[in-house]
């Protein structure tokens, strides 16, 4: 396909489309090989590590304050939507096991305009998500300071912003200069996090069902089981599920992609859904809505204290710090990969994907991730950041489902996935409906910002890369 003209962007750069042979162990191009080094555990760690971050530690207070125990249903809805998208994403990823993930599938399946919109909004969506994680980190760090007895002068809000911004700068610098195995560290953090959460959930469930009694106040949250409130909370907390598709962004580096990609994506969605639903169930049974509202972003700390005393609070604080850090770090990495994906296809200038030979890291792309993150993190708008991030991801998720339907309806010769979603177009159709439908339940301001981003990216396409043709360019 190298002979076919794929057009060029306004600067005259052409998409870098090279014919490759994919094996279980490497991607082989004409002159080079790209080793696949990630196993199933590594893939699960990326999925779980990105997802189980800020969401579970920040949202119980906010979501429980809205609808009480009904928030368990909101988290379950989020999990179902994620699963409906994870299945089609898995099929596409095994058919196109390349770095770039959702952007790649959509640009190949639906063409350059949809590809540009998704590619650029994925970048910005990840920027919003990272900022959200960093603000969560700031709140937990503030609690940690208070717990060890350090009184901070000035306004607490300001401290949160400062911590979030400093952490944003720190992670960006770390990713540019760090050549040690970040992935191994990530695996360790995820394992530690999972075991801490499992212990917390185990004890919490025993207490909720009255097997042990930690003297939590009687009386549950006044629950609001209405469909609309549940769905609008689901739209808010869906940020907790952003991350499973990030597994697809490292598809090119996954060993045995036909087996490991679906397992890692679907497995991580199932694992975190169970964790979330249980956590929120415990949280809303320990505290009522008023108490959850008062505790706010770090309500989980108070729940830990209620259940297990000061050690419980400390466990949650440490868990919250680890989780928000791992989410933020994983997202900055994904952002740089998203930028690389679009730059390779000449939708962004080529220099955006440059690597420095000293560290071997993509410093420009990491800067384009970290820079806007820092600005957004300073705003401290937890709910707004989360919803805009979800909005931009949901657009991509919906379009992934549409891309699958489109590709299947007129199956090209090269399309040969190892994993096929059963049931014909039913699951992808539901996935698309659910993804776009969830957007309708968001706050007006979030939708407005999201739509503005979409129009801006579409405008960029017509200005910069209107002549580039990517449909079916493998």
């Amino acid at each position, binding site marked *: 396909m190298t002979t076919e003209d794929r057009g060029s962007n306004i600067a005259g750069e052409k998409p*870098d489309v090279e014919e490759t042979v994919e094996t279980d162990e490497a991607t082989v191009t004409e002159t*080079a090989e790209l080793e696949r080094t990630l196993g199933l555990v590594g893939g699960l760690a990326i999925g779980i590590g990105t997802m189980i971050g800020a969401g579970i530690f920040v949202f119980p207070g906010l979501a429980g304050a809205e609808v009480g125990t009904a928030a368990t249903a909101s988290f379950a809805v989020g999990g179902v939507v994620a699963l409906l998208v994870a299945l089609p994403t898995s099929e596409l990823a095994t058919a196109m096991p390349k770095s770039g993930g959702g952007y790649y599938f959509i640009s190949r399946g639906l063409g350059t305009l949809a590809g540009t919109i998704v590619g650029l909004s994925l970048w910005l969506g990840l920027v919003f998500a990272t900022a959200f994680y960093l603000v969560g980190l700031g709140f937990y760090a503030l609690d940690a300071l208070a717990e060890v007895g350090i009184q901070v002068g000035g306004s607490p809000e300001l401290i949160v912003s400062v911590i979030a911004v400093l952490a944003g700068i720190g992670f960006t610098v770390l990713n540019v200069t760090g050549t040690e195995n970040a992935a191994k560290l990530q695996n360790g953090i995820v394992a530690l996090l999972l075991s801490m959460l499992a212990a917390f959930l185990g004890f919490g469930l025993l207490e909720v069902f009255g097997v042990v009694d930690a003297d939590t106040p009687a009386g549950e949250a006044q629950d609001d089981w209405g469909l609309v409130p549940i769905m609008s909370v689901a739209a808010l907390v869906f940020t907790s599920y952003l991350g499973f598709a990030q597994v697809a962004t490292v598809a090119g580096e996954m060993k045995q992609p036909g087996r490991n990609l679906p397992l890692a994506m679907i497995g991580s969605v199932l694992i975190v859904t169970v964790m979330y639903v249980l956590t929120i169930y415990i949280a809303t049974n320990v505290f009522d809505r008023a108490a959850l509202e008062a505790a706010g972003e770090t309500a989980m700390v108070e729940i830990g204290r209620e259940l297990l005393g000061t050690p419980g609070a400390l466990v949650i604080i440490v868990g919250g710090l680890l989780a928000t850090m791992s989410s933020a770090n994983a997202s900055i990495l994904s952002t740089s990969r998203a930028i690389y994906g679009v730059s390779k296809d000449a939708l962004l200038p080529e220099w955006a*994907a440059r690597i420095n030979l000293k560290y071997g890291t*993509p410093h420009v792309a990491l800067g384009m991730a970290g820079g806007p993150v820092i600005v957004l993190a300073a705003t401290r708008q937890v709910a707004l950041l989360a919803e805009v991030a979800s909005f931009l991801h949901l657009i991509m998720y919906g379009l992934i489902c549409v891309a699958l339907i489109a590709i299947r309806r007129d199956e090209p010769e090269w399309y040969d996935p190892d994993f096929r979603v059963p049931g014909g177009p039913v699951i992808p159709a539901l996935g698309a409906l659910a993804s776009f439908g969830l957007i309708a339940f968001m706050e007006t301001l979030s939708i407005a910002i999201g739509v503005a981003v979409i129009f801006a990216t579409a405008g960029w396409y017509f200005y910069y890369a209107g002549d580039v043709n990517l449909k079916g360019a493998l």
Partner: protein
Amino acid sequence: MTRVLVPVAILKGEMVSAGLVDLLATVDVTVLGYHVLPEQTPPDQARAQFEDRATGALDDLTGQFHEAGGDADHRLVFTHDRRQSIDRIADETDSAAYAITGATGEVDRLLVSLTGEVDTAQITAFVEEVIGDRDIGVTLFAAGEKDDGRLETAAETLSAAGIDTATKWVAGNPFDSLIDAVADHDGIIMGEQAPSLASLLFGEEADRVAAASVGPVIVVRSAEKDKA
């Protein structure tokens, strides 16, 4: 014909010394140009940027092996894991050994280590093939509690092939005494060791020997690993 893999960190400017090129003139060589990337960089991204530069350097290197008289080709790999790439390419090219480059001039004498759980017959056969009918001497070396006669057996085989052979048994720490014995030799040939606690903590034995001995180290791959 026997093939030896020569992994080279091609974009870090690693070169192959003239002595090693000459030593390997009797066997087929695959030069493996590799570039290790941190986790945050997709290998494909590095390929797009560095492929041409790396291929140019690999062509030059392969040319050196051709000039020395051997048959040589090359592969280029972008990876997160050097070890995994070396193992995979060695399997795919059916290489009997891989070389760790090091500085050396003309090779007059090789130190061959038979310490530990290695297939001495396999190593001996490899040494015989590499040296061929050239005037290169061999010191067979092993360290351990008691001499089980493995050196004598190997020495007989090599002497029969017309190679000037000496033996050296040392009852000391295998690693330190091997390094002590390196003086007056221009390179080391050793067997591949099974992973151990020490290799997990300090890195692979062959890499440590190479670091301590300065000269090139050729590691004969164990036959069992070939099957896997």
